[in-house]
Protein backbone atom coordinates (compact mmCIF):
# COMPACT_ATOMS: atom_id res chain seq x y z
CA UNK A 1 0.00 0.00 0.00
CA UNK A 2 1.32 3.45 -0.85
CA UNK A 3 1.69 5.66 2.17
CA UNK A 4 -0.23 8.92 2.25
CA UNK A 5 2.75 10.95 3.36
CA UNK A 6 6.39 9.91 3.66
CA UNK A 7 9.26 12.02 4.95
CA UNK A 8 12.49 10.14 4.43
CA UNK A 9 15.75 11.34 6.04
CA UNK A 10 14.66 14.93 5.72
CA UNK A 11 17.00 17.70 6.87
CA UNK A 12 16.54 21.40 6.60
CA UNK A 13 19.02 24.18 7.36
CA UNK A 14 18.19 27.72 8.28
CA UNK A 15 20.62 30.41 7.30
CA UNK A 16 19.91 33.51 9.31
CA UNK A 17 23.35 34.75 8.33
CA UNK A 18 25.44 33.25 5.61
CA UNK A 19 28.13 31.86 7.89
CA UNK A 20 25.91 30.24 10.47
CA UNK A 21 24.10 27.29 9.18
CA UNK A 22 21.90 25.61 11.67
CA UNK A 23 20.08 22.39 11.10
CA UNK A 24 16.67 22.88 12.55
CA UNK A 25 15.47 19.62 11.16
CA UNK A 26 17.80 16.73 10.91
CA UNK A 27 17.13 13.32 9.52
CA UNK A 28 13.42 13.24 10.20
CA UNK A 29 11.45 10.17 9.19
CA UNK A 30 7.69 10.34 9.41
CA UNK A 31 5.17 8.14 7.67
CA UNK A 32 1.40 8.57 7.63
CA UNK A 33 -0.96 5.84 6.53
CA UNK A 34 -4.10 6.76 4.65
CA UNK A 35 -6.78 7.99 7.02
CA UNK A 36 -4.44 8.42 9.95
CA UNK A 37 -4.55 11.37 12.34
CA UNK A 38 -1.05 12.14 13.62
CA UNK A 39 -0.06 14.95 15.96
CA UNK A 40 3.33 16.60 16.16
CA UNK A 41 4.27 17.76 19.61
CA UNK A 42 7.40 19.48 20.79
CA UNK A 43 8.80 22.53 22.47
CA UNK A 44 9.25 25.74 20.53
CA UNK A 45 12.23 25.58 18.23
CA UNK A 46 11.90 21.92 17.36
CA UNK A 47 10.85 22.80 13.84
CA UNK A 48 7.22 21.69 13.86
CA UNK A 49 5.98 24.43 11.56
CA UNK A 50 8.98 23.94 9.30
CA UNK A 51 8.09 20.27 8.88
CA UNK A 52 4.61 21.26 7.76
CA UNK A 53 5.92 23.85 5.33
CA UNK A 54 8.31 21.28 3.90
CA UNK A 55 5.46 18.82 3.44
CA UNK A 56 3.33 21.52 1.81
CA UNK A 57 6.10 22.17 -0.70
CA UNK A 58 6.56 25.75 0.53
CA UNK A 59 10.16 24.97 1.52
CA UNK A 60 12.62 22.64 -0.17
CA UNK A 61 14.45 20.14 2.05
CA UNK A 62 18.24 20.26 1.94
CA UNK A 63 18.44 16.51 2.24
CA UNK A 64 16.00 13.65 1.93
CA UNK A 65 12.68 13.46 0.18
CA UNK A 66 9.02 13.97 0.89
CA UNK A 67 6.39 12.06 -1.00
CA UNK A 68 2.61 12.33 -1.06
CA UNK A 69 1.11 9.10 -2.37
CA UNK A 70 4.40 8.28 -4.02
CA UNK A 71 4.84 11.61 -5.79
CA UNK A 72 7.34 14.24 -4.67
CA UNK A 73 5.48 16.98 -2.87
CA UNK A 74 4.99 20.42 -4.43
CA UNK A 75 2.70 23.36 -3.72
CA UNK A 76 -0.82 22.15 -4.32
CA UNK A 77 -0.14 18.52 -3.30
CA UNK A 78 -1.71 18.82 0.14
CA UNK A 79 -4.14 21.03 2.02
CA UNK A 80 -2.37 23.42 4.37
CA UNK A 81 -3.94 25.36 7.23
CA UNK A 82 -1.73 27.89 9.01
CA UNK A 83 -2.26 28.97 12.59
CA UNK A 84 -3.94 32.25 11.71
CA UNK A 85 -7.23 31.84 9.90
CA UNK A 86 -6.01 34.11 7.05
CA UNK A 87 -9.49 34.60 5.65
CA UNK A 88 -9.37 37.29 2.98
CA UNK A 89 -11.17 40.23 4.58
CA UNK A 90 -12.82 41.44 1.36
CA UNK A 91 -14.34 38.08 0.48
CA UNK A 92 -17.51 36.58 1.87
CA UNK A 93 -17.32 33.33 3.80
CA UNK A 94 -18.48 31.38 0.76
CA UNK A 95 -15.92 33.04 -1.51
CA UNK A 96 -13.23 32.39 1.08
CA UNK A 97 -13.88 28.70 1.49
CA UNK A 98 -13.92 28.24 -2.29
CA UNK A 99 -10.59 30.01 -2.73
CA UNK A 100 -8.57 26.91 -3.63
CA UNK A 101 -10.91 25.98 -6.47
CA UNK A 102 -9.76 29.07 -8.33
CA UNK A 103 -6.31 27.57 -8.79
CA UNK A 104 -7.33 24.03 -9.63
CA UNK A 105 -7.69 22.45 -12.99
CA UNK A 106 -10.35 19.88 -13.72
CA UNK A 107 -13.14 18.99 -11.29
CA UNK A 108 -13.84 21.79 -8.85
CA UNK A 109 -15.90 22.22 -5.75
CA UNK A 110 -19.31 23.60 -6.70
CA UNK A 111 -21.13 26.32 -4.80
CA UNK A 112 -23.75 23.77 -3.95
CA UNK A 113 -21.22 21.53 -2.22
CA UNK A 114 -19.66 24.48 -0.45
CA UNK A 115 -23.07 25.56 0.86
CA UNK A 116 -23.73 22.06 2.10
CA UNK A 117 -20.52 22.18 4.07
CA UNK A 118 -21.42 25.55 5.54
CA UNK A 119 -24.69 24.06 6.70
CA UNK A 120 -22.92 21.17 8.35
CA UNK A 121 -20.57 23.35 10.35
CA UNK A 122 -23.30 25.76 11.43
CA UNK A 123 -22.30 28.67 9.20
CA UNK A 124 -25.30 28.46 6.92
CA UNK A 125 -26.52 31.95 7.77
CA UNK A 126 -23.09 33.45 7.30
CA UNK A 127 -22.57 32.48 3.69
CA UNK A 128 -22.47 36.11 2.57
CA UNK A 129 -20.95 37.57 5.72
CA UNK A 130 -17.49 39.10 5.71
CA UNK A 131 -14.91 37.46 7.99
CA UNK A 132 -14.88 40.42 10.38
CA UNK A 133 -18.49 39.66 11.28
CA UNK A 134 -17.58 36.18 12.56
CA UNK A 135 -16.41 35.10 16.00
CA UNK A 136 -13.02 33.45 16.49
CA UNK A 137 -14.46 29.94 16.49
CA UNK A 138 -16.52 30.61 13.37
CA UNK A 139 -13.52 32.04 11.55
CA UNK A 140 -11.52 28.95 12.43
CA UNK A 141 -14.29 26.70 11.20
CA UNK A 142 -14.39 28.64 7.93
CA UNK A 143 -10.62 28.34 7.60
CA UNK A 144 -10.92 24.61 8.26
CA UNK A 145 -13.59 24.29 5.59
CA UNK A 146 -11.35 26.15 3.17
CA UNK A 147 -8.69 23.53 3.86
CA UNK A 148 -11.12 20.62 3.37
CA UNK A 149 -12.39 22.15 0.14
CA UNK A 150 -8.91 22.09 -1.34
CA UNK A 151 -10.11 18.50 -1.87
CA UNK A 152 -6.67 17.18 -1.00
CA UNK A 153 -6.49 13.86 0.71
CA UNK A 154 -3.65 14.88 3.03
CA UNK A 155 -4.24 17.88 5.30
CA UNK A 156 -1.57 19.68 7.32
CA UNK A 157 -2.93 21.69 10.22
CA UNK A 158 -0.62 24.07 12.08
CA UNK A 159 -2.13 24.67 15.51
CA UNK A 160 -5.56 25.39 14.09
CA UNK A 161 -7.16 25.87 17.51
CA UNK A 162 -4.16 27.49 19.21
CA UNK A 163 -5.63 30.97 19.37
CA UNK A 164 -9.07 29.95 20.64
CA UNK A 165 -10.29 30.15 24.22
CA UNK A 166 -10.72 26.88 26.12
CA UNK A 167 -14.49 26.63 25.69
CA UNK A 168 -14.48 27.37 21.98
CA UNK A 169 -11.62 24.96 21.57
CA UNK A 170 -13.63 22.20 23.24
CA UNK A 171 -16.50 22.95 20.89
CA UNK A 172 -14.15 22.68 17.94
CA UNK A 173 -12.93 19.30 19.22
CA UNK A 174 -16.46 17.93 19.45
CA UNK A 175 -17.16 19.29 16.01
CA UNK A 176 -14.01 17.86 14.45
CA UNK A 177 -14.56 14.46 16.07
CA UNK A 178 -18.15 14.44 14.84
CA UNK A 179 -17.16 14.88 11.20
CA UNK A 180 -13.91 12.93 11.46
CA UNK A 181 -15.28 9.51 10.48
CA UNK A 182 -16.85 10.62 7.22
CA UNK A 183 -14.11 13.12 6.45
CA UNK A 184 -11.82 10.28 5.48
CA UNK A 185 -8.68 12.42 5.34
CA UNK A 186 -5.10 11.92 6.43
CA UNK A 187 -4.13 14.63 8.88
CA UNK A 188 -0.81 15.84 10.25
CA UNK A 189 -1.57 18.15 13.12
CA UNK A 190 0.60 20.48 15.20
CA UNK A 191 -0.44 21.38 18.69
CA UNK A 192 0.90 22.50 22.04
CA UNK A 193 -2.06 21.05 23.82
CA UNK A 194 -1.44 17.50 25.03
CA UNK A 195 -5.09 16.75 25.77
CA UNK A 196 -6.00 17.86 22.29
CA UNK A 197 -3.31 15.68 20.77
CA UNK A 198 -4.36 12.57 22.73
CA UNK A 199 -8.05 13.13 22.10
CA UNK A 200 -7.74 13.56 18.35
CA UNK A 201 -4.78 11.41 17.29
CA UNK A 202 -4.08 7.85 16.32
CA UNK A 203 -0.42 8.53 16.90
CA UNK A 204 1.66 11.27 18.50
CA UNK A 205 5.13 12.15 17.32
CA UNK A 206 7.27 13.86 19.88
CA UNK A 207 10.02 16.14 18.58
CA UNK A 208 12.91 16.58 20.96
CA UNK A 209 15.25 19.54 21.02
CA UNK A 210 18.15 17.31 19.97
CA UNK A 211 16.15 16.68 16.78
CA UNK A 212 15.30 13.09 17.51
CA UNK A 213 11.72 11.93 17.24
CA UNK A 214 9.71 9.54 19.32
CA UNK A 215 6.42 7.91 18.41
CA UNK A 216 3.61 7.24 20.84
CA UNK A 217 0.56 5.35 19.56
CA UNK A 218 -2.74 6.34 21.15
CA UNK A 219 -4.78 3.20 21.66
CA UNK A 220 -8.12 4.71 22.49
CA UNK A 221 -11.28 3.49 20.79
CA UNK A 222 -13.04 5.55 18.15
CA UNK A 223 -15.50 7.22 17.84
CA UNK A 224 -14.21 9.54 20.52
CA UNK A 225 -15.87 12.51 22.11
CA UNK A 226 -14.52 15.52 23.91
CA UNK A 227 -15.68 14.31 27.35
CA UNK A 228 -13.10 11.54 27.19
CA UNK A 229 -10.36 13.91 28.36
CA UNK A 230 -11.46 13.10 31.91
CA UNK A 231 -11.06 9.32 31.65
CA UNK A 232 -8.24 7.56 33.42
CA UNK A 233 -6.75 6.32 30.14
CA UNK A 234 -6.37 9.83 28.85
CA UNK A 235 -4.92 11.12 32.08
CA UNK A 236 -2.35 8.34 32.06
CA UNK A 237 -1.38 9.12 28.51
CA UNK A 238 -0.98 12.73 29.44
CA UNK A 239 1.24 11.94 32.40
CA UNK A 240 3.39 9.62 30.33
CA UNK A 241 3.90 12.18 27.55
CA UNK A 242 4.56 15.02 29.96
CA UNK A 243 7.30 12.94 31.52
CA UNK A 244 8.81 12.17 28.12
CA UNK A 245 8.83 15.85 27.20
CA UNK A 246 10.45 16.79 30.49
CA UNK A 247 13.12 14.11 30.09
CA UNK A 248 13.60 14.74 26.38
Amino acid at each position, binding site marked *: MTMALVMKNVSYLVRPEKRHKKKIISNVNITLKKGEFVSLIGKSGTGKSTIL*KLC*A*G*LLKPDEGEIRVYGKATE*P*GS*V*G*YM*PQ*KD*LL*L*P*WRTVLENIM*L*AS*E*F*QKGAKVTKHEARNWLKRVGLKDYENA*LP*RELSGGMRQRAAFLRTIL*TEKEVLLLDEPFGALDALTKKEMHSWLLSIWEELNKTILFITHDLEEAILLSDRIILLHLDQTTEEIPVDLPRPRHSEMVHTMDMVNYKKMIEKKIADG
Partner: protein
Amino acid sequence: MAKLKSFFKDYLLFILFLCVIIVIWEWLVQSGKVPSFILPSPSSVIRSIVENRESLFQEHLLATVKEVAIGFFIAAAGGIALSILMYFSKALEKMIYPVVLISQTIPIIALSPVFVLWFGYTIWSKVAVTVLIAFFPIVVGMYDGLKNSDPEYDELLQSMGANKWQRFMKVKLPMALPSLFSGLKLAIVFSVVGATIGEWLGASVGLGYYSRRMSGNLNAEGVFAAVFLLSVLGMVLFFVVTLLQKWMLKWNEEKKR
Protein backbone atom coordinates in the same frame (compact mmCIF):
# COMPACT_ATOMS: atom_id res chain seq x y z
CA MET B 1 -31.47 61.33 11.18
CA ALA B 2 -28.85 59.46 13.14
CA LYS B 3 -26.36 60.33 10.43
CA LEU B 4 -27.18 64.01 10.71
CA LYS B 5 -26.78 63.80 14.45
CA SER B 6 -23.35 62.21 14.25
CA PHE B 7 -22.36 64.74 11.59
CA PHE B 8 -23.14 67.60 13.97
CA LYS B 9 -21.44 65.83 16.81
CA ASP B 10 -18.29 65.52 14.74
CA TYR B 11 -18.26 68.92 13.11
CA LEU B 12 -20.27 71.27 15.34
CA LEU B 13 -17.24 72.81 17.01
CA PHE B 14 -15.51 73.27 13.70
CA ILE B 15 -18.55 74.95 12.14
CA LEU B 16 -18.96 77.26 15.13
CA PHE B 17 -15.29 78.18 15.02
CA LEU B 18 -15.54 78.91 11.29
CA CYS B 19 -18.60 81.12 11.80
CA VAL B 20 -16.87 83.09 14.56
CA ILE B 21 -13.80 83.65 12.38
CA ILE B 22 -15.92 84.83 9.45
CA VAL B 23 -17.93 87.18 11.62
CA ILE B 24 -14.77 88.71 13.17
CA TRP B 25 -13.21 89.01 9.73
CA GLU B 26 -16.29 90.73 8.29
CA TRP B 27 -16.41 93.11 11.25
CA LEU B 28 -12.71 93.97 11.02
CA VAL B 29 -13.09 95.02 7.38
CA GLN B 30 -16.50 96.69 7.68
CA SER B 31 -15.39 98.80 10.62
CA GLY B 32 -12.37 99.99 8.63
CA LYS B 33 -9.75 98.46 10.94
CA VAL B 34 -8.25 96.60 7.97
CA PRO B 35 -8.35 98.26 4.54
CA SER B 36 -10.39 96.23 2.05
CA PHE B 37 -7.69 96.27 -0.64
CA ILE B 38 -5.47 94.26 1.76
CA LEU B 39 -8.14 91.93 3.09
CA PRO B 40 -11.52 91.97 1.40
CA SER B 41 -14.52 91.10 3.53
CA PRO B 42 -16.06 87.63 3.10
CA SER B 43 -19.26 89.20 1.79
CA SER B 44 -17.41 91.12 -0.92
CA VAL B 45 -15.55 87.95 -1.97
CA ILE B 46 -18.88 86.17 -2.35
CA ARG B 47 -20.24 89.17 -4.26
CA SER B 48 -17.22 89.05 -6.55
CA ILE B 49 -17.80 85.35 -7.24
CA VAL B 50 -21.47 85.93 -8.01
CA GLU B 51 -20.76 88.91 -10.26
CA ASN B 52 -18.13 87.09 -12.27
CA ARG B 53 -19.80 83.70 -12.09
CA GLU B 54 -19.94 83.18 -15.84
CA SER B 55 -16.25 83.58 -16.57
CA LEU B 56 -15.21 82.07 -13.23
CA PHE B 57 -17.20 78.86 -13.51
CA GLN B 58 -17.57 78.28 -17.23
CA GLU B 59 -14.10 79.35 -18.23
CA HIS B 60 -11.53 79.35 -15.44
CA LEU B 61 -12.84 76.66 -13.09
CA LEU B 62 -13.51 74.38 -16.04
CA ALA B 63 -9.98 74.85 -17.39
CA THR B 64 -8.42 74.10 -14.01
CA VAL B 65 -10.61 71.03 -13.47
CA LYS B 66 -9.56 69.74 -16.87
CA GLU B 67 -5.86 70.15 -16.06
CA VAL B 68 -6.30 68.51 -12.66
CA ALA B 69 -8.28 65.60 -14.10
CA ILE B 70 -5.88 64.85 -16.96
CA GLY B 71 -2.82 65.27 -14.74
CA PHE B 72 -4.25 63.14 -11.94
CA PHE B 73 -5.25 60.31 -14.25
CA ILE B 74 -1.88 60.22 -15.97
CA ALA B 75 -0.13 60.25 -12.59
CA ALA B 76 -2.43 57.52 -11.24
CA ALA B 77 -2.11 55.25 -14.27
CA GLY B 78 1.65 55.78 -14.53
CA GLY B 79 2.24 55.55 -10.78
CA ILE B 80 0.26 52.34 -10.35
CA ALA B 81 1.87 50.73 -13.40
CA LEU B 82 5.36 51.69 -12.27
CA SER B 83 4.74 50.37 -8.74
CA ILE B 84 3.59 47.03 -10.11
CA LEU B 85 6.62 46.79 -12.40
CA MET B 86 8.93 47.64 -9.51
CA TYR B 87 7.20 45.01 -7.38
CA PHE B 88 7.87 42.31 -9.96
CA SER B 89 11.41 43.37 -10.89
CA LYS B 90 14.02 43.91 -8.20
CA ALA B 91 16.41 45.42 -10.75
CA LEU B 92 13.84 47.95 -11.88
CA GLU B 93 13.07 48.84 -8.28
CA LYS B 94 16.74 49.45 -7.51
CA MET B 95 17.03 51.56 -10.63
CA ILE B 96 13.84 53.61 -10.48
CA TYR B 97 12.85 54.02 -6.83
CA PRO B 98 15.74 56.37 -5.95
CA VAL B 99 14.88 58.44 -9.03
CA VAL B 100 11.29 58.76 -7.84
CA LEU B 101 12.51 59.87 -4.41
CA ILE B 102 15.04 62.32 -5.81
CA SER B 103 12.43 63.80 -8.16
CA GLN B 104 10.71 65.12 -5.03
CA THR B 105 13.71 67.19 -4.00
CA ILE B 106 13.55 69.22 -7.22
CA PRO B 107 11.66 72.44 -6.54
CA ILE B 108 8.75 72.08 -8.88
CA ILE B 109 8.38 75.81 -9.36
CA ALA B 110 11.93 75.90 -10.66
CA LEU B 111 11.15 73.15 -13.10
CA SER B 112 7.91 74.63 -14.40
CA PRO B 113 9.55 77.08 -16.83
CA VAL B 114 11.14 74.03 -18.41
CA PHE B 115 7.70 72.63 -19.09
CA VAL B 116 6.63 75.94 -20.59
CA LEU B 117 9.71 75.68 -22.78
CA TRP B 118 8.74 72.18 -23.89
CA PHE B 119 4.97 72.40 -24.10
CA GLY B 120 4.45 76.13 -24.60
CA TYR B 121 1.28 77.68 -23.26
CA THR B 122 -0.87 74.66 -24.11
CA ILE B 123 -2.72 72.70 -21.45
CA TRP B 124 0.15 70.17 -21.40
CA SER B 125 2.59 72.43 -19.55
CA LYS B 126 0.07 72.63 -16.70
CA VAL B 127 -0.68 68.92 -16.90
CA ALA B 128 3.06 68.18 -16.70
CA VAL B 129 3.42 70.11 -13.43
CA THR B 130 0.34 68.35 -12.06
CA VAL B 131 1.65 64.90 -13.01
CA LEU B 132 5.03 65.60 -11.47
CA ILE B 133 3.53 66.68 -8.18
CA ALA B 134 0.85 63.95 -7.97
CA PHE B 135 3.04 61.07 -9.10
CA PHE B 136 5.06 60.70 -5.92
CA PRO B 137 2.35 60.01 -3.31
CA ILE B 138 0.71 57.53 -5.68
CA VAL B 139 3.89 55.54 -6.30
CA VAL B 140 4.81 55.52 -2.62
CA GLY B 141 1.28 54.53 -1.55
CA MET B 142 0.93 51.73 -4.09
CA TYR B 143 4.46 50.40 -3.78
CA ASP B 144 4.48 50.36 0.03
CA GLY B 145 1.08 48.70 -0.03
CA LEU B 146 2.40 45.94 -2.26
CA LYS B 147 5.59 45.52 -0.22
CA ASN B 148 4.00 45.45 3.20
CA SER B 149 1.24 42.94 2.62
CA ASP B 150 1.26 39.95 4.94
CA PRO B 151 3.52 37.18 3.50
CA GLU B 152 1.47 34.51 5.25
CA TYR B 153 -1.41 35.06 2.84
CA ASP B 154 1.04 34.58 0.04
CA GLU B 155 2.17 31.26 1.51
CA LEU B 156 -1.39 30.10 1.94
CA LEU B 157 -2.19 30.72 -1.72
CA GLN B 158 1.08 29.18 -2.77
CA SER B 159 0.20 26.03 -0.85
CA MET B 160 -2.98 25.88 -2.93
CA GLY B 161 -0.86 25.87 -6.06
CA ALA B 162 -1.42 29.50 -7.09
CA ASN B 163 1.30 30.98 -9.29
CA LYS B 164 2.91 34.36 -8.70
CA TRP B 165 0.51 36.27 -10.92
CA GLN B 166 -2.56 34.68 -9.31
CA ARG B 167 -1.17 35.47 -5.87
CA PHE B 168 -0.64 39.04 -6.95
CA MET B 169 -4.15 39.48 -8.30
CA LYS B 170 -6.00 37.69 -5.50
CA VAL B 171 -4.07 38.92 -2.48
CA LYS B 172 -1.33 41.47 -3.03
CA LEU B 173 -3.34 43.90 -5.11
CA PRO B 174 -6.46 44.04 -2.93
CA MET B 175 -4.26 44.32 0.16
CA ALA B 176 -2.40 47.26 -1.33
CA LEU B 177 -5.57 49.23 -2.09
CA PRO B 178 -5.97 50.99 1.30
CA SER B 179 -2.41 52.26 1.05
CA LEU B 180 -2.93 53.24 -2.58
CA PHE B 181 -5.97 55.28 -1.62
CA SER B 182 -3.98 57.14 1.03
CA GLY B 183 -1.65 58.12 -1.80
CA LEU B 184 -4.50 59.01 -4.15
CA LYS B 185 -6.11 61.30 -1.56
CA LEU B 186 -2.88 63.23 -1.14
CA ALA B 187 -2.32 63.25 -4.89
CA ILE B 188 -5.72 64.72 -5.76
CA VAL B 189 -5.15 67.66 -3.42
CA PHE B 190 -1.61 68.13 -4.72
CA SER B 191 -2.98 68.02 -8.26
CA VAL B 192 -4.95 71.23 -7.64
CA VAL B 193 -1.77 72.85 -6.31
CA GLY B 194 0.17 71.62 -9.35
CA ALA B 195 -2.36 72.94 -11.85
CA THR B 196 -2.39 76.32 -10.08
CA ILE B 197 1.40 76.60 -10.15
CA GLY B 198 1.35 75.63 -13.80
CA GLU B 199 -1.15 78.38 -14.55
CA TRP B 200 0.83 81.03 -12.71
CA LEU B 201 3.80 80.38 -14.92
CA GLY B 202 2.05 80.58 -18.20
CA ALA B 203 -1.61 80.35 -19.06
CA SER B 204 -4.42 82.33 -20.57
CA VAL B 205 -7.20 80.64 -18.64
CA GLY B 206 -7.72 78.86 -15.30
CA LEU B 207 -8.22 79.88 -11.67
CA GLY B 208 -4.48 80.22 -11.05
CA TYR B 209 -4.19 82.52 -14.02
CA TYR B 210 -7.28 84.43 -12.87
CA SER B 211 -5.91 85.03 -9.38
CA ARG B 212 -2.64 86.35 -10.80
CA ARG B 213 -4.42 88.66 -13.19
CA MET B 214 -6.63 90.00 -10.39
CA SER B 215 -3.54 90.50 -8.22
CA GLY B 216 -2.02 92.54 -11.04
CA ASN B 217 -5.19 94.65 -11.13
CA LEU B 218 -5.02 95.11 -7.33
CA ASN B 219 -8.41 93.42 -7.17
CA ALA B 220 -8.21 91.67 -3.79
CA GLU B 221 -11.78 90.35 -4.01
CA GLY B 222 -10.93 88.62 -7.28
CA VAL B 223 -7.81 87.01 -5.84
CA PHE B 224 -9.71 85.72 -2.83
CA ALA B 225 -12.54 84.52 -5.03
CA ALA B 226 -10.10 82.35 -7.00
CA VAL B 227 -8.41 81.10 -3.82
CA PHE B 228 -11.79 80.23 -2.34
CA LEU B 229 -12.88 78.31 -5.44
CA LEU B 230 -9.56 76.47 -5.61
CA SER B 231 -9.84 75.30 -2.04
CA VAL B 232 -13.46 74.25 -2.56
CA LEU B 233 -12.33 72.35 -5.65
CA GLY B 234 -9.64 70.59 -3.62
CA MET B 235 -12.15 69.62 -0.95
CA VAL B 236 -14.73 68.35 -3.43
CA LEU B 237 -12.17 66.24 -5.27
CA PHE B 238 -10.83 64.86 -1.99
CA PHE B 239 -14.38 63.96 -1.03
CA VAL B 240 -14.93 62.19 -4.37
CA VAL B 241 -11.80 60.05 -3.88
CA THR B 242 -12.87 59.28 -0.31
CA LEU B 243 -16.28 58.16 -1.57
CA LEU B 244 -14.62 55.94 -4.16
CA GLN B 245 -12.47 54.45 -1.42
CA LYS B 246 -15.46 53.80 0.81
CA TRP B 247 -17.25 52.12 -2.03
CA MET B 248 -14.33 49.97 -3.13
CA LEU B 249 -13.02 49.09 0.31
CA LYS B 250 -16.17 48.37 2.27
CA TRP B 251 -14.34 45.52 3.97
CA ASN B 252 -11.73 47.87 5.35
CA GLU B 253 -14.16 50.25 7.01
CA GLU B 254 -15.00 48.88 10.41
CA LYS B 255 -11.42 48.10 11.33
CA LYS B 256 -10.49 51.72 11.87
CA ARG B 257 -12.87 52.25 14.75
